[in-house]
């Protein structure tokens, strides 16, 4: 008798939890779909220069998400993700000129080649503790800056480096885009869809077995080892996934810029990426989207475009990012993605309470 009641109770609880999960998923799915619809339909209406900025933001969001996987999920800090983006952009441009493969294949191959480079750079991660890994990746980013200033990006020349000086202006070519997505609006939609696929791949990893292993490694490497997790394998896996994402993003970026140049990447970009990724929220994929907006749209809004006629110097934005980085590390490790819903809920409760005071009470 008691057993049957318990069983019925258990079944009801199970049913409740299942419907609860379903409802949560449905709300989340609806939110993401609405967001994507707005992005795909409304963003291109803003004009050509804005569309280019939004394309940059989408690409940047993927790079921020790759940093989120490394630091937010596994606890390994890489200060060289922009260096990796430079490498990927170079590889993308190089392969684009060297072959005539269809664009999606080009994206995939660039992703895979960058993945190999990323794993080679990440190999020290297996041996070095967190701080040293941060330093080695910072140095990697520095070395990439030096080399890319020397090599420049391929623009249709011969040989491995394939860079023509400005004197050969008639021979200079641009990195090709997918054939039916040539104009900026279509290319923006293409980039957003590729980025959504990359986010989905990352999400599948995080919510699956590798995600659980990464979490265990982040909490305690010793405990993870004791439970039989292959630390070497899963750390490499994280590096491979992050580099693959940056690789595809780099190829998209090469086609977006058409003629990438070393000037497209500033020395402090790696640090700005870290700042924006942390401000957006390093533990969440929404945070990566916010980071993309912060890193690309906000500077454009305040410098090139001007907000209600008020323009400012890009350096002021750098200062704000610096202050934001300190603030996030001090008070809100989850960044805006975690803080904003909390603040909104608090605000809602406050309004509810105030409204309650105004409501006439029954005598």
């Amino acid at each position, binding site marked *: 008798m008691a057993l049957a009641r318990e069983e019925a109770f258990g079944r009801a609880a199970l049913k409740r939890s299942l419907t609860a999960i379903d409802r949560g998923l449905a709300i989340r799915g609806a939110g993401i779909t609405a967001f994507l619809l707005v992005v795909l339909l409304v963003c291109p209406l803003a004009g050509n220069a804005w569309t280019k900025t939004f394309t940059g933001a989408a690409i940047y969001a993927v790079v921020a998400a790759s940093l989120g996987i490394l630091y937010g999920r596994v606890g390994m*800090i890489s200060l060289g993700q922009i260096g990796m983006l430079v490498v990927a952009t170079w590889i993308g441009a190089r392969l684009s000129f060297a072959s005539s493969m269809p664009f999606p294949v080009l994206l995939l191959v660039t992703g895979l080649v960058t993945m190999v480079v990323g794993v080679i750079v990440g190999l*020290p991660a*297996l*041996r*070095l*503790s*967190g*701080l*040293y890994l*941060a*330093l*080695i990746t*910072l*140095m*990697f980013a*520095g*070395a990439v*800056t*030096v*080399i890319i*200033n*020397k090599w420049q990006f391929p623009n249709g020349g011969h040989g491995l480096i394939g860079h023509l000086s400005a004197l050969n202006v008639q021979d200079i070519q641009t990195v090709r885009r997918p054939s039916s997505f040539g104009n900026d609006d279509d290319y923006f939609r293409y980039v957003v869809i590729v980025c959504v696929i990359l986010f989905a791949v990352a999400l599948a990893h995080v919510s699956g077995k590798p995600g659980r292993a990464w979490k265990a490694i982040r909490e*305690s*490497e*010793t405990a993870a*080892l004791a439970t039989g997790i292959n630390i070497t394998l899963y750390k490499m896996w994280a590096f491979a996934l992050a580099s693959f994402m940056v690789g595809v993003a780099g190829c998209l970026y090469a086609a977006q810029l058409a003629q990438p140049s070393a000037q497209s990447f*500033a*020395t*402090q970009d790696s*640090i*700005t990426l*870290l*700042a924006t990724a*942390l401000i957006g929220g390093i533990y969440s994929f929404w945070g990566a989207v916010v980071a993309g907006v912060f890193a690309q749209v906000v500077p454009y809004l305040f410098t090139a475009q001007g907000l209600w006629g008020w323009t400012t*110097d*890009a*350096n*002021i*934005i*750098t*200062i*704000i*990012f*610096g*202050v*934001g*980085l*300190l603030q996030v*590390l*001090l008070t809100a490790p989850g960044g805006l993605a975690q803080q904003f819903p909390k603040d909104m809920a608090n605000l809602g409760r406050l309004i509810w309470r105030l409204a309650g005071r105004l409501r006439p009470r029954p005598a």
Partner: protein
Amino acid sequence: MHSLAMLAFGRVGWTDLKPFIPLGFAFGGIYALAGVGMVVLYRATGVLNLSFGAIGTAGALISWWFINHTGVPDVIAYLIAVAFGGVVTLLYGLLFGPAFAARPPLVKTMATLGLALVLVGLMGHLAPPLNASPRFLHLPSSDWRYRISGAIVNWTEIIAFLFAIVLTFGTAAYLRFTKLGTAMRALANDREISATLGVPVRRVEAAAWLGSGLVCGAAGLLLADQLNTLDPNTLTFNFIIAALAAAVLGRLRFLWATLAGGLVIGLVQSLLNAYFSWPNFDQSLSAYRTVTPFVIATTGLLWLGRRRVITVARSGN
């Protein structure tokens, strides 16, 4: 292949290399200075200050402004740069040191990048590049030249080299023999136990912040003179990478190894410069010599980290 053969068979003679040796020691000395400052701060507070480059560069720029826009004597302007390094670092330490004290070293280190971004932004805003007449900071000591066995040496080079040795020796002795030094070593070992034993943690940490900041300001001045540029990006970048490389070779712990690491990096970089400026040499390779600190530090890191060790971070460490 030809250039490689030339390197191997030494067609570049001793006399060609000679002028580059003092230069190498000078750069090495500056890197070592900054590296030692970093290591001392890291040992005492657990903070690896990645804003060192930005602080040193900002100090040099301020010094340039005082020399060119006010009637202040040069010496005072140099002292202001050194003091700026000390004050900014100390203020950061006082404001954020305690707040981050219980966080892992990685978080403490990332936080200093916030300060670096603020300073880089400020420099870009207040001192935009002057393309027509770039800024230069020229120390008067660079005009006092000597000839030592065929190589021309100027006083800035001698100062940089000697300062690095004196500072390393002085700091090592200070940490070993004085009360404050002992307290710093105690802090490096265990902050909580030191506090329980009555070590004035805040004061000792403040001393470390101030000291490392002053060294950073001085190193920034010397590097601005030796690199012959005041471009914020170039200077910040070169400064921090070389200082980090030296500190890493000292495993963020050993002062003498940091000194040696800094000197080796400076010397190798300068000698490569000698090879590359040799007329018959493939000039297009000379851009790569800037990669020297990365290559040496990365090789060093991999060599030092060749044994796989799992460390469990203690809270508050």
